[in-house]
C-alpha cells in the first residue's frame, strides 16, 4: 500500500491556492461525459452532489433513507465554526487552524487543517445565500456563541438546529440539481460493496431496500460520504441506521483504514435510563456556555440538588481548569465526568450522571434569555426525562458520538484506491485524535462544497471517460458476493436476534475499547470478538425474505460488518501504545491525569491494510510533521 499525502509545496497560507492552480481541469463541455457516484446525502454528500451537478458532472447520488434530508447531519445541534472574526475578539484563520490542531492533540495533518480553516469563511457565506436562518443580533448582523476548546466566539448557529438548517440548505441545492437533470437521486438504496476494476474504483453494488434487488452502478469515480461508526458501541448518539458498511467494504477492497481507534465520547448526553434503551440522546455542547457542571462532594449524596449547599458542591471543571472552566475540550470533560461517577459521586436514580446546572445563568440573564438560547434543548430534555431543567439541573453523562478515524485520504481527499474519494466524517483527515465542537459541520461542508468538486477534476482529467460500464465481469463477481452474504444471513435460522448480538458487541467495545483502554482489556477484546462473530453467523435469526423491505436483514448486514470492524478498532487501540486526545490508554497518563502522548513513536497516522478474512491486517504509517503548531502538552488550565 502506497501512502502519498500529496501535500502541496509552499507556505501553508498558499498551499491550497497554489494547488488549485497546479491541478488539471476538466473542460466544461467534457464534464457531462463523466459519471460520479456519491454515496450518502448528509452535509458532505449533499453539498458535493449539488456542487458537482452545478459544475456539469453527471452525478448519481445514493441514500438508504426515503429522502436525502434524513441523513444524521440533521441532528447536529450547536453550530458551525468559522474564522470570520465578526466579534473582533482576536480570531483569525490561523487561530482556528491552531485551535484545531491543538484540540486534535497533534494527530492531524497541518495542511488539511489550514485549508479547512480557510474554507470556513466561504461556508458561512454560502449557507446565508441559500437562506439558512442563522441567529442574528438586533442590528441584523450574524450572532456567534462560544464552544469548547476555543477562547473566541466563532460558532454560527440556528437555535439548537444548526445541522438541520445547514442540511436543508444542501438538500435544497441538491434538489435544484435533480430538477436540472444533473443529479439522479436513488433513495432507499444501500451500498453493499465497492467495485474496483484494474486498480481503480469503478462503481458500487447496491440493494434496493424495497424490492431487495441487487444492482450494479458504474462510474468514473466514487465518493463515499457515509458518516461515522459510533454505532459499533450499539448505544451512541448516532442515528439508529448509521453504520460502517460502505467504508468497511471499501477497506476490504483495498482502501486503507486510518486511526479507527479515535472515537469521540461526547460529554453532554442524557444518561441511560434502563437496559431496553435503543439509543442515547445528545444535549448540545453549547449548553456548557451557560450551564455549570458539578457533583456533590459527598459520595452517594441522596439529597435533591437544590438542598445541597454551595459549599458541598464540586464544580470540578472550574476547579481543575480555571482558564477554560466548563468549556474544556470534549475528551477532557468526558473523562472527568466518568471519574466522578466512578468515584461514587454520580447523580440521578442510577447514579450515572453529573449535573449541568442553569440556576446561575437564569439568575444572571433571566429565564427568557436562557429560553431564547436553549429553549428547544430544554424541551427535548423534559420530553425524555420528564424533568424540567429550568427548575432542577440537567443530568448528563458521556456517550459515543463521533469518530475521527475513517478511510485514509490524501490532500485531494482521495483514498489509496485511485478514483475512490472519501469526505466528511467517513474520512480521517482533519480532526486528529479529538474533534472540537462545531467542527464536524464545517468539515463536512468544506469537503463537499469546496474541496472534492475541485480535486476530483484533477483525477478525472487524467482518465478518459470509462467505457466499461456495469456490464464488466467485475460487477457480476461483486454482485454474487453480495447475494451470497444475504443468503447466508437469511438461511442461518439460529436462535438469537440481530440486536442481541449488537448489544453484546456494544457492551464489549464500551468496556474494553471505550473511554479508557488498556493493553490487557484490548487483548481480551481481540480474543472475544472473533468468537462473537462466529456465534453470530451460526446462530443469528433473520426472519423474512430478501425480496421485500426487510429491516432485520438490513440490520444483520450492517452488524456483520461492525463485527469485523470492531476487531480492527481494538487492534489499532492496542498498537497505539500512547494516549492522545480521545484515545486514552490507562498506562499513559501525566501526573495530572491527562492524556500523555508519545510523539517520538506515535506522531503518525496508522493506516491499516486488509489482508483477508481471519488474517492479521498490516499497519502502514504516514508520519506527521508539525511546522506551525509546535508539539506541546495540551493545557486548558
Amino acid at each position, binding site marked *: 500500500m502506497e501512502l502519498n499525502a500529496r501535500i502541496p509545496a509552499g507556505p501553508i497560507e498558499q498551499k491550497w491556492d497554489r494547488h488549485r492552480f497546479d491541478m488539471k481541469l476538466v473542460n466544461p463541455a467534457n464534464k457531462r461525459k463523466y459519471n460520479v457516484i456519491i454515496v450518502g446525502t448528509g452535509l458532505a454528500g449533499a453539498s458535493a452532489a449539488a456542487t458537482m451537478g452545478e459544475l456539469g458532472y453527471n452525478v448519481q447520488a445514493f441514500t438508504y433513507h426515503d*429522502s436525502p434530508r434524513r441523513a444524521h447531519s440533521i441532528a447536529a445541534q450547536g453550530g458551525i465554526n468559522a474564522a470570520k472574526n465578526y466579534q473582533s475578539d482576536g480570531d483569525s484563520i490561523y487561530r482556528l487552524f491552531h485551535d484545531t490542531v491543538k484540540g486534535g492533540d497533534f494527530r492531524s495533518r497541518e495542511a488539511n487543517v489550514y485549508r479547512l480553516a480557510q474554507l470556513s469563511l466561504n461556508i458561512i457565506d454560502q449557507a446565508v445565500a441559500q437562506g439558512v436562518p442563522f441567529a442574528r443580533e438586533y442590528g441584523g448582523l450574524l450572532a456567534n456563541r462560544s464552544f469548547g476548546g476555543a477562547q473566541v466566539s466563532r460558532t454560527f448557529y440556528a437555535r439548537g438546529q444548526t445541522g438541520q438548517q445547514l442540511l436543508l440548505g444542501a438538500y435544497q441545492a441538491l434538489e435544484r440539481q435533480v430538477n436540472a437533470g444533473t443529479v439522479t437521486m436513488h433513495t432507499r438504496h444501500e451500498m453493499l460493496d465497492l467495485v474496483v476494476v484494474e486498480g481503480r474504483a469503478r462503481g458500487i453494488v447496491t440493494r434496493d431496500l424495497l424490492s431487495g434487488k441487487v444492482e450494479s452502478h458504474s462510474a468514473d469515480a466514487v465518493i463515499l460520504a457515509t458518516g461515522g461508526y459510533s454505532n459499533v458501541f450499539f448505544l451512541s448518539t448516532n442515528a439508529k441506521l448509521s453504520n460502517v458498511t460502505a467504508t468497511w467494504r471499501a477497506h476490504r477492497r483495498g482502501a486503507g483504514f486510518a486511526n479507527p481507534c479515535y472515537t469521540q465520547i461526547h460529554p453532554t448526553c442524557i444518561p441511560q435510563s*434502563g437496559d431496553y434503551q435503543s439509543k442515547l440522546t445528545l444535549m448540545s455542547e453549547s449548553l456548557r456556555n451557560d450551564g455549570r457542571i458539578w457533583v456533590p462532594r459527598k459520595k452517594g449524596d441522596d439529597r435533591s440538588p437544590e438542598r445541597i449547599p454551595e459549599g458541598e458542591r464540586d464544580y470540578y471543571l472550574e476547579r481543575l481548569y480555571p482558564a477554560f472552566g466548563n468549556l474544556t475540550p470534549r475528551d477532557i470533560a468526558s473523562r472527568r465526568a466518568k471519574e466522578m461517577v466512578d468515584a461514587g459521586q454520580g447523580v440521578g436514580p442510577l447514579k450515572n450522571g453529573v449535573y449541568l446546572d442553569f440556576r446561575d445563568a437564569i439568575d444572571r440573564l433571566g429565564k427568557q434569555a436562557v429560553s431564547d438560547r436553549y429553549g428547544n434543548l430544554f424541551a427535548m430534555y423534559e420530553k425524555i426525562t420528564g424533568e424540567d431543567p429550568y427548575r432542577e439541573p440537567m443530568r448528563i453523562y458521556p456517550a459515543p458520538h463521533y469518530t475521527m478515524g475513517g478511510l485514509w485520504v490524501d490532500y485531494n481527499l482521495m483514498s489509496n484506491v485511485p478514483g475512490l474519494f472519501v469526505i466528511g466524517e467517513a474520512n480521517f483527515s482533519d480532526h486528529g485524535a479529538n474533534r472540537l465542537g462545531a467542527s464536524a459541520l464545517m468539515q463536512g461542508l468544506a469537503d463537499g462544497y469546496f474541496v472534492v468538486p475541485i480535486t476530483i477534476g484533477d483525477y478525472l482529467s487524467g482518465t478518459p471517460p470509462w467505457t466499461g460500464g456495469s456490464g464488466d465481469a467485475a460487477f457480476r463477481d461483486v454482485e454474487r458476493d453480495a447475494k451470497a452474504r444475504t443468503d447466508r444471513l437469511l438461511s442461518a435460522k439460529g436462535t438469537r436476534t440481530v440486536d442481541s448480538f449488537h448489544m453484546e458487541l456494544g457492551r464489549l467495545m464500551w468496556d474494553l475499547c471505550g473511554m479508557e483502554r488498556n493493553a490487557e482489556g484490548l487483548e481480551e477484546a481481540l480474543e472475544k470478538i472473533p468468537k462473537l462473530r462466529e456465534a453470530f453467523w451460526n446462530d443469528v435469526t433473520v426472519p423474512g425474505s430478501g425480496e421485500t423491505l426487510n429491516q432485520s436483514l438490513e440490520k444483520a448486514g450492517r452488524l456483520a460488518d461492525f463485527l469485523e470492524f470492531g476487531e480492527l478498532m481494538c487492534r489499532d487501540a492496542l498498537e497505539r501504545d500512547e494516549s492522545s486526545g480521545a484515545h486514552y490508554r490507562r498506562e499513559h497518563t501525566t501526573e495530572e491525569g491527562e492524556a500523555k502522548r508519545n510523539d517520538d513513536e506515535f506522531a503518525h497516522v496508522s493506516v491499516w491494510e486488509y489482508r483477508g478474512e481471519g488474517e492479521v491486517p498490516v499497519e502502514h504509517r504516514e508520519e506527521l510533521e508539525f511546522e506551525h503548531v509546535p508539539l506541546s502538552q495540551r493545557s486548558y488550565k
Partner: protein
Amino acid sequence: MRLTLHVWRQAGRDDTGSFETYQADGISESMSFLDMLDLVNEELAQEGKEPIAFDHDCREGICGSCGVMIDGVPHGPKSMTTACQVHMRSFKDGDEIWVEPWRATSFPVIRDLVVDRSPFDRIIEAGGYISVRTGSVPDANTTPISKGAVETAMDAAVCIGCGACVAACPNASAMLFTASKVAHLALLPQGQPERYDRVLKMVDVHDEEGFGNCTNHGACEVACPKGISVDYIAQLNRDLVRATLSFRPEKGTAE
C-alpha cells in the same frame, strides 16, 4: 406495564392489510414509543416472525423519518412531539393502543407502517430553494436581516418533513409542508428574486401529486411536531394570489 397493541400489518403496496394484535409486557414508563415497538419486534424475531416495519432513524425528533398514527392521532398523544419522543409515561397499564401508518392517497403504504413520502421531495425539487451556485455569493454580513424576520423564517424552517400534517388533514393536503418552505424563503431578503415563481411551481407540484386543498381546518398545526402555524398557509395564499394575478402567463398567450 402491560399493553395490548393493534398494529396495521400490510405485506406490500398491493396487499389489503389488516390489524394484528400483540401483547406488550414489561413496558417501563421511561421507554420511548419506538423502544416499545423494538421490544415487540425482538419478541417477534425471536419467534421467527417478521417484525413490524416502521421508518425511524435519529430518535431525537429531528430527522422526520418516524411517524405513525397512535390511536388515530399523528405521532400520538403529546403535542409538539414526534413518535420517537413520545414516552410510555403517556400511557397506563392495561391500555389498548391502535397503531397505523399515515393514511393519504399521495402517501401509499409500502409495508406495515412505512409509507412513500417521495412527493415531498418533488415539491422541494419544483422550486423550494434559492438558486445560488456554490461559491458565487457575497460575504454573509453584506445583507443585515432583522432578528424578527430571521426568527419568523426559522419558525417555518424547522419543518422536519414527517408528513403528520397530511395525515391529520381531512383533505390530505400538504399545504402546511409547502407553506413552511415557501414562507421560510419568502421572509428572507435572499428569497425575494424567486419569491413568486417559487410559490407557483411548488403549489403546482403539490396539486399534481394528488394532495387535497386547504380548507382551513387547522388540524395540521395541531399535529405538527414542530408547532408550525397555519399563519404560514395564509402567507402562502397571499403570495399565490399575487403571483397568479401578476406573474403567471395566461395559457395560450405568448410569454
